[in-house]
Structure formats: structure tokens, C-alpha cells
């Protein structure tokens, strides 16, 4: 059995990341000649029908009041109990923070290794995984030597697909025995993100680095982002100088994004930053240094000062659109 951890959207459907993991699980299960099983928290809803189309034979639904908050330790403990009972060959989960945390707890409970941020899993003797290191600049081939192989997958690894022939999905409701004596963190407040463009969802991110020069210098980036329907980001230099909040930081220790277009203004492109934007579909670099790594890696480049180039671009956009 290849057990797949399903994260669910607000409407109960599998998240995009979960769908990717399901596709990977199916490939793996085929290689092993084993069935695909899934585990999710909550009620069945339409989930069995959805999973049937994705080749899942068995769905385990974890139900416990402590799980409602999404606590990774509770989810991990529940998952560990299920895994201990089912003894799957492998457990795959999305590489989101929440699932990684739950998987880490489960792995600790089970006393097995966990390979995070995997891009590939290869059964064998022993099993091998390929995983991302250093923010994805490096790939690591690692032996995963365990009776049950736990792994989380980087988003975007395999292409999600639906199978032609739907399986019959059997649903098991499992009520885990969560230890109430263990002190746990409790969710006491949740404030939904204000509607609007975020770094991760924006199709265009206009980001600035050292070359912007000051907090005030970002006004021109804000203006361009507004015109093209994008969000504003920044490099670590800008955060460290107090020019922008950390939430705007793109990079290894900030946000990793994959917009349609990344406009890098006055950003040299150090590794720390590059890993945050390297999944952008295309990059436009504006920089005074034609040899800056960001320029040499960009799709398009303009050699020049941010504060000369951007105002001219804004003027040109306004001229063409008559605004």
C-alpha cells in the first residue's frame, strides 16, 4: 500500500498539492504492484468520488475533535497510529508546512526516517529519493532505509492526472486515540488574510533590492505593480535595511514564488534570493550591472538604474493605455 496524505480545501476537495501527491503515489504504487490508499481528516463528503477518479482504492478518514484545529502534533499522532496499523510500504504527503510538520511528528512516533522536499522516489534496495537542498539549488540523492518510507513532495513535481477507470473506494473512519495528557498547542485565534494580491498568487511580482536604495524608492515599484496587476516583493537586503516588511521578502528564508513574470529591480541575484524566484515563468531584470547573476539568468534585461527605467516604463504604459 502507498498511503497518501490528503490536504483539503475549504470545500472538502483535495488541494492542488494533494492532487500532485496522488499522481506520484499512483506511479509509485504501480511500480510496487500495490494499491493506493489515502488519509484525510474530517467527513467523507465528495472526497471518495473525487479520489476514485485518481486511482485511490481505500480512504481513511481521521475523525477527532482535536484534529479540527489542524494541529500537526495531533495529526501526526493520528497518522502514526494509522500507519502502525496499516503498515503501508510508503506514506506520501504534500510538502506544505502543515503536512511536513505532521509527517515529522508521525515519523518520530514511528521511529522511522522522513525525507522532505522530495522530487522523486525510487523503490529499490534500499529505496532512494531525490530531494531539494539549499532551497532547491542543489538536489540530493539519498537512501531511505526503513520498513515504512515517509516522504513529503515538493510542489510541482509530477503532473497531476486523473485515471480513466474509476476504482471503487472503500472508506474507513478511524477515530484515533489521542493522548489527552500530552500538553498541546491550541489554536486561539485565526485571522483570514485580507483579500487581494499576495506574493504567492500574483501573476506578476515586481521586486526590488539594493538598487532601489530606500524605503521611499519602492513607490515606483508599487505604481508599476498596480498597473500590471501584480504584487511587490523585495530581497533580503531590503528587509534587513528596514525598507520593506519581511512578508514581502522573496527567497530561501522568505517566500518562494512562481509567478508568470518576475520583475527584479536592482537585485543582483544571490543564491538566497534566486531560489525564491527561480520558478518564475519568466524574469525581467533591471540592473546597472550587466553581469549581475540576475541579469544573466533573466529572460529579458534592461541595463540601467531602477529609478530611470521604471518611471519611463510607467509613462509608456500610461501613454499607450491613455490613462
Amino acid at each position, binding site marked *: 500500500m502507498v498511503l497518501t496524505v490528503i490536504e483539503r480545501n475549504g470545500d472538502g476537495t483535495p488541494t492542488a498539492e494533494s492532487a500532485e501527491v496522488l499522481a506520484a503515489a499512483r506511479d509509485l504504487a504501480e511500480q510496487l504492484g500495490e494499491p493506493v490508499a489515502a488519509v484525510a481528516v474530517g467527513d467523507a463528503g465528495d472526497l471518495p468520488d473525487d479520489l476514485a477518479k485518481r486511482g485511490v482504492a481505500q480512504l481513511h478518514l481521521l475523525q477527532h475533535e482535536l484534529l479540527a484545529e489542524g494541529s500537526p502534533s495531533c495529526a501526526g499522532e493520528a497518522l502514526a497510529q494509522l500507519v502502525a496499523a496499516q503498515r503501508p510500504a510508503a506514506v506520501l504527503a504534500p510538502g506544505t508546512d502543515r503536512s511536513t510538520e505532521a509527517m515529522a511528528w508521525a515519523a518520530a512516533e514511528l521511529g522511522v526516517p522522513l525525507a522532505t522536499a522530495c522530487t522523486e522516489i525510487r523503490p529499490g534496495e534500499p529505496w532512494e529519493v531525490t530531494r531539494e537542498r539549499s532551497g532547491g539549488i542543489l538536489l540530493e540523492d539519498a537512501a531511505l532505509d526503513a520498513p515504512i518510507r515517509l516522504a513529503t513532495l515538493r510542489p510541482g513535481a509530477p503532473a497531476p492526472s486523473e485515471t480513466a477507470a474509476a476504482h471503487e473506494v472503500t472508506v474507513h473512519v478511524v477515530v484515533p486515540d489521542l493522548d489527552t495528557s500530552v500538553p498541546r498547542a491550541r489554536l486561539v485565534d485565526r485571522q483570514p488574510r485580507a483579500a487581494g494580491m499576495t506574493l504567492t498568487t500574483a501573476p506578476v511580482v515586481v521586486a526590488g533590492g539594493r538598487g532601489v536604495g530606500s524605503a521611499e524608492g519602492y513607490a515606483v515599484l508599487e505604481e508599476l505593480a498596480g498597473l500590471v496587476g501584480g504584487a511587490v516583493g523585495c530581497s533580503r537586503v531590503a528587509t534587513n535595511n528596514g525598507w520593506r516588511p519581511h512578508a514581502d521578502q522573496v527567497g530561501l528564508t522568505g517566500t518562494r514564488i512562481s509567478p508568470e513574470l518576475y520583475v527584479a529591480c536592482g537585485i543582483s541575484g544571490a543564491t538566497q534570493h534566486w531560489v525564491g524566484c527561480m520558478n518564475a515563468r519568466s524574469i525581467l531584470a533591471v540592473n546597472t*550591472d*550587466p*553581469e549581475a*547573476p540576475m541579469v544573466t539568468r533573466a529572460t529579458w534585461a534592461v541595463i540601467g538604474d531602477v529609478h530611470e527605467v521604471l518611471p519611463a516604463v510607467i509613462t509608456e504604459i500610461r501613454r499607450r493605455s491613455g490613462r
Partner: protein
Amino acid sequence: MSSLPDRAQVVVIGAGIVGNAVVHHLARLGWRDILLVDKGPLPDPGGSTGHASNFAFPVDHSREITLLTGDSMRQYAELGTLTTCGGIEVARTPERVQELHRRMSSARAWGIDAELISPAEVAEKVPFLDPSVVLAGFWTPSVAVVDPLRAGELMRERAVAAGALTVSAMTEVLAIETGRGRVRRVRTDRGDVDSEHVVVACGVWSPRIAALAGATIPLTPAVHQMIDVGPIEELAATGREIAFPIVRDMDPLMYERQSGADLEIGSYAHRPILCDPDDIPSLAAAALSPTQLPFTPDDFDPQMEAALELFGGILDRPDAGIRHAINGLLSLTPDGHPLLGETPEVRGLWSAAAVWIKEGPGVGRLIAEWMTDGAPEIDPAAADIARLAPHERTRAHVRARATEGFNKTYGITHPREQWSSDRGVRRSPFFPREEALGAEFFEVAGWERPQWYRSNEHLVAEHGVADRPHEWDARWWSPITNAEHLAMRRGVAMIDLSAFSQFDVRGPGALGFLQHLTVAQMDRPVGRVVYTPVLGPDGGFRSDLTVVRLGDAHFRVVTGGSDGARDLAWFTRHLPPDGSVALTDVTSAVCTLGLWGPRARDVLAAVTDDDVSDDAFPFATARWLTIGSVPVLALRLSYVGELGWELHAATESGLRLWDALAAAGEPHGLVPAGIGVYGTTARMEKGYRLMGHELDAEHGPVEAGLALPGLKAQDFVGKAAYTKAREGEPEATLCTLRLDDARDASGLPRYPQGGEPVLTPDGGRITDSRGRPSYVTSAGAAPSLGTHLLMAYLPPRHAGEGTGLLVEYLGERYPVTVARAGRTPLFDPDDTRMRG
């Protein structure tokens, strides 16, 4: 991506401050089709120019370095890239206070405004400094911070605007092709460029680039640690990059300078951390830049303690953080001097390496002038890459001396101080005897030469020689030298001169070749010994040496050990291409013993059957003698003013020669004598000039008093300038000054060492009509005259014999008298002793 031209008049590799300055000055001097390439991006390709602390203290004990720094500061200022902030070298110890006095003398000698100030005055200029740990300060108002990256950009722009320069960044040199001993083509990852001239201005990478052409640039990258601490309110409030004087805290070997809101602290105190040029990371693989290596905090901790002592008031604050810390790379050489000039191995391949930021533009001008005219305005001898002997180019030697030299960067280096590392590389065959006699060895070009012999200690009392009471005066010195001197003058001494560099010049073109390089007439009978100046194209001294005609087409050239490598390169460069002259370095094949003194003939006659009488063997001639079973080439001449000979034998027979002379000399009171006698006391009594001291490119034979009576018909290098100088009045005359009974404020007799300024009786500086200052070129005891002698060039108005002047030495001034203007010796003015 730019593509490169197919050919260039000159390719300059390296776009740091030096490379940019070279292209600028080449363009200014009329060079065209100049190509400047760098492996890195512009304006900061990642070399040491990009992370240097960028300050310039104009005063150095070395005249050449002071001139280069002064020229560079003028250039930086002219480009608008110099900010004058002033600088203070502070002393925490009495020994350093003395060194600051010495600095003061150098400042006065070179004409740079400076003064010694009290701790309170130091604190007035730098209010956040704790004056209680300071004894004195050496204040130089013209100390400045420069912007070498911007200066480099401007210099490139000027050369480009002149239509002279193509710049190609991100261009890696892959190979330098040579043919018939000269550069022909530079191969890069962006194409190949034909060129007959290549300048390597690659800083710490220079050894790698030169090796592509088969040449050596003997430097090693080494770490210099720097940190930035801030923000500091007082500094930020100035709103300027630098508003306070730079402080060199000399005793802990470190400096502190404002850099905006931060205080930058740099150190030359930590253990020497050397790096191999091959181990410098690439631009991409380096975390900061290739020449900013990861900081090693353990090495810097003592500096932090020292910095807290001096600047505790601003550094001991919770918000003053260490914001930047690097192990920056700089270049170290075996003797601490730059590596400039055409490499001796490959014609057309020039080195412009091991240069500090404060000297960069000046070096650019020097190299460009040298490439254009064959001689730069500033004497390059001490920086000439050709000065280094073969062993001094080895990795082991470079690393040993760089290791030893690093902590001397801010150290107190005595003018006679000897190196302790990598000694004993070159030993004469006499070494075992000398060692047994307790020789104190000084080094020249790797040769171990006895400076004096402890076995002669008893002579000190016998001759009543006084010791020097002040430690600084007596350091690296012994009264034995004066005793050996007196023993020689009274009896006879033998002196190991095997460190001489000797070349054989043979072939049908030999005479013409030597005529072209020397001032004296070389077409003399076989067996004649001729002393001659060797000039540069501008008529300044390149060398002075002795030539012996051994056959119609066979000459032996004998030159000083420290000058040998440069002279060999100079001679080699001038060999005719037709192969008519064979030049052979026979230095290692020949050992030399000098035998001088009134009893020298008695000793020599006792060991040879040949006739050594004055009739049979007159002065200024050479003959082959047989001493026992050893054939010896004997040269009757003297640098010490006594009857005697230089005896040249095969190296492997050297011990035989020594033992034969020592045995025969015993009844005549023969003593071994050291170079202290040969190079200082005896030669100064005789008014003989020494290359590198009195003789340099700034002065020609006329001013040095070495003009020959006649002017030979044959053309020779420097003849036009020499002829012109002979026709006019000299602007300065080399004089010998007498220092009589100089006592300091505490009543101790004192002995200046050389380098001190010569002042008018009222303490004014003396310069000649060309602006050249008068300073002591050599200083030494004159035991037979009972005085201490100094040599100095003086302009005519001060050069009259009997004129009273002053010499400033370690903070005090001593009266001196011009004892001799010109070359006539003070001791035995008619040379009767050596001609006897």
C-alpha cells in the same frame, strides 16, 4: 557580449586601480589600440581594489614609495576621488615614540607636512579616542581617503574618450603565447588578440597569469583582516564618509577609520595567513568576492581588545555591532616591495603587481613611462621585478618571507634589520671557516656574508674601539667592525666577496656590446681592470661595475651581489639578436676573497711563486696566479683604499684558497674582516659610492662625482644625457659630511644611520633646483679618521667644504660639516696606499 579586436598595441590584464591607471597613462603618452581585459565585471571585478580600506598615509621611510604615494594622491585628487581627513599614528610605547621621531625625520626629508603631537592634541582631533593609553601622535594633515573604483572608472573613460582604449570585462585570459622570448598573443574566452606588449596588473592573481607566459611574479596572496563596527552616533551625525582623522594604532599593528556611521578596524597583527593564487575562489563561488575570504574571528580577538582600549567610548555600546568582517586578500612579496617592470623571463611581458591602493595611480604612470621611454621619472630599482634572484622567485621563499614580513607592515624595522627565515640558501665555500670563526652573517640576495667575526672581539680592546651606548644605534652593529677596519689598515685582512655577481661576455660582438652599455672605454688592453658606471636612457645610474678584459673577445663583468639580478636582466635584454655575444652568469662558479692592507703583498707573495710586485702587477690590472694548486684570477683594485687584490677562484677550490691565505697570513697578523668594513667604514673613508645608496636613477655620474675625464667616441646608453650633464653645472654634488661628537639631550653620543634629512643651520629643508631633497644616503663610522661620516647630495650653495649644516636624527638635530665635495677621499686622498 563584446568581441575583441584581432590585435592590440598593448593588452593590459586586470581592471583594478593599477590596470586602469596603466591604460590611462599609456593613452596619455600616445599609445593606441590599448585593450583592457578583466575576468570579473566592472566597475568592481572582485580583486583587492574592491575591498581595500582606501587610505593613504604619504610618509614612508622609503623615498620611492613616498614619491609613488605622493604622485598617486595628486592623481586621485585631480580626479576628484580624494578626501583629505588627516591621519595620526599613535604610539603606546617609548620605542614607538622613537619610531615616530624617525617618521618625523622621513617626513622632513621628503618634504611632507607633519608634526608630533601630544596625547591631548590627539584627543582633540579624535574626540572619542582615549588619550590615556597614548604617549604621542604623529599627525599628518594630508592623509586622505581615496575612491579607487571611481578613479579607475574615470581613468578608463579618459582613455576611451581619447580613442585609445577598448575595455572588455568578463573576459578570461586562457593563454599567453610567446615566440622567440617575447609575448605574441593573448588568448581569451572571447577571442585571441595579437600583441607584443602585455601588462599583468592582476593583483593576487598575477602569478597565475604570468605563468601562462612562462614568467614568474613572485608574490603570495595573504589575508588582512578588517571589520566594520556600527552604527556609531557620533560618526553617523557627521553625515559623511569620513570626517575624523584616521588613526593608526601602531603598537598593536592596526588602524581605525571612520566609514560612514561605522568604525572600520584593520589589522596587520594576526598570524600570517597565506593563500595560493590557485586557491582563490571564483567570483561565482565566493560568498562575498574572490578576495574577501571568510573572516576567522579567533585571529582578530586581540585586535578587538586593543580597539576597546583606544575607542572603548564608542565601541563598547550594545548597538554598535560588527556589521561586516572579512579576511581581505592583499599581495605580499619577499622583500615587501612592489613587483614592477618587464619580467626578466619574457620580453614584452610587464608586471604591475603587489601595489597598494595608495600607490596605484603612481605605479600606472611609472609603468607607462617605463614602457614608453625606457626609464620612468621615479627610480624603479627597489621595485624592479628583475631585482629578485632565482631562489627569491620560488614559492617556498616567497611564502617564508611573506610570513615573516606580514607583521612588519606596521612594525618598527631597523634599517640594518636582517631576515630570519629561509636563510642559508647561498653559501660561499668559505662558509665553514667563517662559521667556525663566529661570523655574524648578513644576507644579500640570499648569500650569507660575514658582517663581522666574533673571533676578532679581542681587537676591540686592542684598538680601543668605543661601543655605541644607545641601543638603536648599536642594533645590528658591532664595534668589532671598527676594530677589523683598524686591523686591516694596520696590517692585512681578508674579506669574503663571493656574493659578487659575475658574468662572462664572449664572442666577436662582446666589445661592442659592452661599449654600448657602459660609460668607460672598454677597448683597453687585455688584463686591464676598468670601473664604469652603467646608465639608463635618461643618464641616471642603473649600475656601477668592474669589467676585466680577459681576452680580445672575452670580458669578465663583476657587479654587486644585490644588483646582480637586475644587471643580468639588463645585459640579457641588450644582447644582439645575431648571436655574436655569449653572456654567461658565472657567479656560482667563482668564489672571491679580497686581500687588503699594507701587508697584503707579503701574504700573497708567500703563497704564490708569481711576481706580485707593483712593477709586475700594477694597479688596475688582472692576472692569473697560482696559489698552491689553485689557479686564481687576481684583480689589483680596492674598494677599501688599501694595497691588495680580489682573488677569484673556482668555487670548489675556495677552501684551499682560504686555508692557504690564512696560514700564510698568520705571521703577518692577517684577520678576516666582514662586510661592515668593506661596505661601510673603509669605503666611506675613501668616499666610494654605493649603488642603491648614493647611486640611483635620480642622479648621474656628474653629480655623483664619477664623471670620467674623457668622453668615449662610441655611443652608449645614456650618452646624450651624460654629455649634457658634463657640459652644465651640476644641480647637486655628492658630499661627505663629518659628524663630530654628536651628543643627544641626555649626553649620549649618537650615530645617524642613513635616510635622515640634511638641514640648513636654522633647520630649513634643503632641496636642489630640481626639487630633490638632501638626505643622508649612507652613514658610517670612519675609525681611521676618528669620526662618523655621512654622504648626501647638496645643491651648490650648500656644497662648499667647511659649510656647517644640521642632520635630524630621531627627533634631535646634530651639527655636521661638509668635509668633502666630490669624490676625493678623506682618507689617503692621493690613494698612495692602494697604489703602493
